[in-house]
């Protein structure tokens, strides 16, 4: 067991444990802040997998964008003097049964299948390759994604504006 295995194990534990806190914690604020550690752990996995650009994107978009939006959502939908922002759960037994069934079937598939693995693939910086792929092979999905973001922007602004402004 060398040093990178130990680092990987630590980050795997941190990621799964903080995801468990996200799901099981009673406090919304605790959930939101432990989601930060989950996103960070996923970014570390991307670095382990040689996806440097994707790790940076994960940090910028998820931690810098989505997490902040979720925190804004928590703050805007509760009265600020109500400091214990708690949340209840319902149908926990059925949910636990379905989640455990999903976990066991997925891990059975992952462990039983004979994957055709290429072990010794050399890792190199991916940013220039991703840029080239965006402007050649993936040009149409790239444009569609930009239109999707524009539509989401306008739609979100339309949805939250006050009705008296019409």
């Amino acid at each position, binding site marked *: 067991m060398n040093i990178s295995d130990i680092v990987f194990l630590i980050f795997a534990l941190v990621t*799964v444990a903080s995801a468990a806190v996200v799901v099981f914690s009673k406090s919304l604020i605790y959930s939101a802040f432990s989601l930060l550690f989950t996103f960070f752990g996923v970014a570390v996995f991307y670095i382990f997998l040689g996806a440097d650009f994707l790790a940076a994107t994960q940090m910028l978009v998820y931690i810098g964008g989505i997490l902040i939006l979720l925190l804004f959502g928590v703050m805007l939908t509760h009265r600020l003097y109500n400091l214990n922002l708690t949340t209840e759960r319902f149908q926990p037994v059925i949910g636990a049964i379905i989640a*455990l069934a999903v976990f066991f079937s997925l891990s059975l598939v992952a462990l039983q299948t004979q994957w055709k693995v290429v072990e010794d693939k050399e890792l190199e910086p991916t940013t220039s390759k991703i840029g080239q792929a965006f402007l050649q092979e993936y040009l149409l999905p790239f444009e569609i994604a930009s239109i999707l973001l524009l539509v*989401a922007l306008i739609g979100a602004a339309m949805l939250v504006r006050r009705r008296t402004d019409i």
Partner: protein
Amino acid sequence: MIQLQHYLLISAALFSLGVFGVLTRRNAINVLMGVELILNSANINLVAFSRYSSSGIDGQMFAIFVIVVAAAEVAVALAIVLTLYRLLKTVNLDQAGELNK
């Protein structure tokens, strides 16, 4: 030695935790957090298969598009949650059954 199966197991754990959160949480924002966990686990799978197969960076491209769609999704979903809060003064999903009455 880190292998493909380790990534798949971590991703399965994240996915089932996300499913549990989506199924059992009552607060809409907590449900959104569960959806984010599910999308992240799918992304780990895509990037891991891209690393351990002979194809190029196609898996990473897919993961980038998943991130784009997740960003758009969370913006629109939070707009809907804020509108719901303004209408009903609650974000609990089981009380948002106006069409069911």
